[in-house]
């Protein structure tokens, strides 16, 4: 039996606002919504399986804290992150399943009517912790209401073997396309090639190819949801991809999400785009060779194109409460509790920043400065764009990304399977099917 009852929990969550350092920094005045877990409530949570061990361990510790504080038992199930999406879709369709699902990208906008309105919680957390980054609203606001809470994103940065970069004649990491290509060519010449995923990999395939497209000023659709992928800017991006591809380690067309991690940790590539999980694996390994590699790893942000601003796509995480839950108050209380500084900040620390925060106040979490190699991931949410940029999110954007339209276009052109113009035209036709032009 818990020593704290539900009323105490209310006081606890409301009182936490005053004491939270981060909240003070954000200078927020926030009133916690009155969330009284239903009598006899219990929750089932489905989340994506950890990418780094510390994440899951701390998540479970925080969950236990919630149970102690409220008496609400919470069962947390984990699935491979790509399997969560289908399960969430089924739950939405049949109106039955876990009370809370932590999923990815634009899931919430596929079935917003099935999700519990969490505007009160989002407004409270936003006010308390310095506000949500703009991209959160793109992913989770429907008709002006929050239909899910942001959890953060798995930020991406260039993972580089610094000694290889220096051996290739570069003291600093290039900040533009031309320099980036030169570095890749030099790495290839030294026998330490780069490798970027070009297979049907939902995470790594989409993130780097969208950066490639957007950083050249190209996009699949414009503000009016018109398909504009067949453009001189896309042509420039694909020509650049062709040159980059010549420097890649063989086999990247077949790579799925785990391949670049494996190849990097085996020393077969010296540069790739990934979350902090590669560094985490090397750092926490007991193998001296891995430790040595960890010391040599440095992270850099993707080069900036002619637009003069970062154009990244990162793996966005949402937290959805389904309307069919019998315990909406308990579910809201759980998510609120997990996003509070006392839980969220240690969770970020345990996973050395694998998940970048959606709330601005957590930028000051010491994890981002504890090691300079963490810092490039700090602003992943701040700078990221949404898949479907610069149009509206919904079925069309979800379908276009799930169908790997951009990944396939880049792969076709880069590998020479199709001429650049044909690859663009094919992508245009495929995108138009979703945008029903």
């Amino acid at each position, binding site marked *: 039996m818990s020593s704290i009852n539900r009323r105490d929990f209310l006081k606890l969550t409301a009182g936490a606002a005053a004491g939270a350092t981060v909240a003070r920094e954000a200078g927020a005045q926030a009133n916690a919504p009155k969330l009284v877990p239903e009598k006899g409530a219990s929750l089932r949570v489905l989340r994506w399986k950890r990418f780094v061990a510390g994440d899951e361990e701390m998540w479970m510790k925080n969950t236990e804290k919630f149970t102690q504080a409220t008496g609400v038992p919470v069962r947390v199930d984990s699935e491979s992150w*790509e399997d969560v*999406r*289908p399960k969430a*879709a*089924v739950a*939405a*369709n049949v109106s039955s399943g876990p009370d809370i699902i932590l999923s990815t990208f634009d899931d919430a906008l*596929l*079935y917003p*009517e*099935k999700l519990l309105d969490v505007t009160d919680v989002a407004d409270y957390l936003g006010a308390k912790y310095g506000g949500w980054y703009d991209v959160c609203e793109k992913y989770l606001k429907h008709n002006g209401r929050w239909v899910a809470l942001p959890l953060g994103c798995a930020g991406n940065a260039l993972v580089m073997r610094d000694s290889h970069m220096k051996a290739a004649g570069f003291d600093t990491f290039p900040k533009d396309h031309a320099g980036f290509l030169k570095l890749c060519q030099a790495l290839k010449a030294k026998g330490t090639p780069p490798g970027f995923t*070009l*297979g*049907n*990999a*939902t995470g790594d395939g989409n993130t780097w190819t969208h950066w490639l497209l957007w950083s050249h000023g190209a996009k699949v659709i414009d503000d009016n949801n018109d398909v504009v992928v067949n453009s001189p800017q896309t042509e420039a991006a694909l020509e650049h991809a062709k040159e980059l591809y010549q420097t890649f*380690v*063989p*086999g*990247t*067309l*077949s*790579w*799925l999400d785990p*391949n670049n991690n*494996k*190849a990097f940790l*085996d020393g*077969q590539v010296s540069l790739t785009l990934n979350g902090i999980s590669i560094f985490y694996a090397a750092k926490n390994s007991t193998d001296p060779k891995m430790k040595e590699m960890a010391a040599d790893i440095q992270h850099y942000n993707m080069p900036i194109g002619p637009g003069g601003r970062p154009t990244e796509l990162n793996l966005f995480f949402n937290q959805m409460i389904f309307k069919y839950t019998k315990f909406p108050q308990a579910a809201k209380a759980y998510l609120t509790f997990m996003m509070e500084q006392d839980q969220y900040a240690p969770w970020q620390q345990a996973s050395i920043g694998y998940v970048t925060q959606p709330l601005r106040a957590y930028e000051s979490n010491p994890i981002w400065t504890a090691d300079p190699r963490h810092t490039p991931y700090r602003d992943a949410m701040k700078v990221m764009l949404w898949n479907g940029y610069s149009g509206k999110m919904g*079925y069309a954007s*979800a*379908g276009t990304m*799930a*169908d*790997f339209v951009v990944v*396939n276009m880049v*792969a*076709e052109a880069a*590998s020479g*399977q199709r001429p650049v113009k044909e690859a663009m035209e*094919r992508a245009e*036709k*495929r995108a138009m*099917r*979703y945008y029903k032009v």
Partner: protein
Amino acid sequence: MKRLDDRNWLGALFMLPAAAILLLFLTYPLALGVWLSLTDQKIGRPGEFVGLENFRSLWGDAVFWLSVFNTLFYTAMASVLKFALGLWLALLLNRVRLFRSFIRAIMLLPFIVPTVLSAIAFWWIFDAQFSIVSWVLIKLGLITENVNFLGDPWNARWSVIAANVWRGIPFVAISLLAGLQTIPPSLYEAATLDGASRWQMFRYVTYPLLTPIIAVVMTFSVLFTFTDFQLIYAITRGGPVNATHLMATLSFQRAIPGGQLAEGAAIATAMIPFLVAAVLISFFGLQRRKWQQGGGDA
């Protein structure tokens, strides 16, 4: 109570549970799938009847046609190879006398192992960087760099076919072996006395008597192969550049991650004519006496 003495009534009663299960778990999902394909339903939202709009849209979709080609190629090649190798293996096993049961049990392993596990094993075997096959060939001095098993469209197609064949051979071999053991030895003795060669014995004794079971086994094999999902999903996700996408994997990709339930259902529905054709060929084949005797139609 009198009705319980009526054979017809009792027969119908006993069939009810099986019929209910078939209706609930086969007919209903099939009918629902076909209905969905005629709507514009998306995940989480009810759809409206749109007639053949999804099929019209798919007609102009290059990726769909590529998946049709891939599926037919995958099914044809894998089925032929599974039949040839399975028959060969069955003939060999039929002659084995020592450790017969043990060898048969071992042979079933690929079929017993969960598909996803064997798919992950093949994913490693065909890995661009860590392939054991490439490693061996390099060590033997036969090649200088790793084979690009899954990065080249045709290599990838043949690689997934190889994985499917490895997995499917035991089913064909064990079934055909069961058929071989029903052939009376006296027929072979008579053929030997008539001076028949080994090939003639196979052609005029084994093959005709095995034809009915071949028809059944290959029908099932074709159906399993045509609807394969797990191997492709685990090994390539349909890549590179959709070169290994089958209709089943594309259907899933569009319906669930893509949210376009109706279109996914339309792709699945488009598989039905092919499956029905495979069943009908087998069904009518089994009706023909000449086929049963290993002869042609002419």
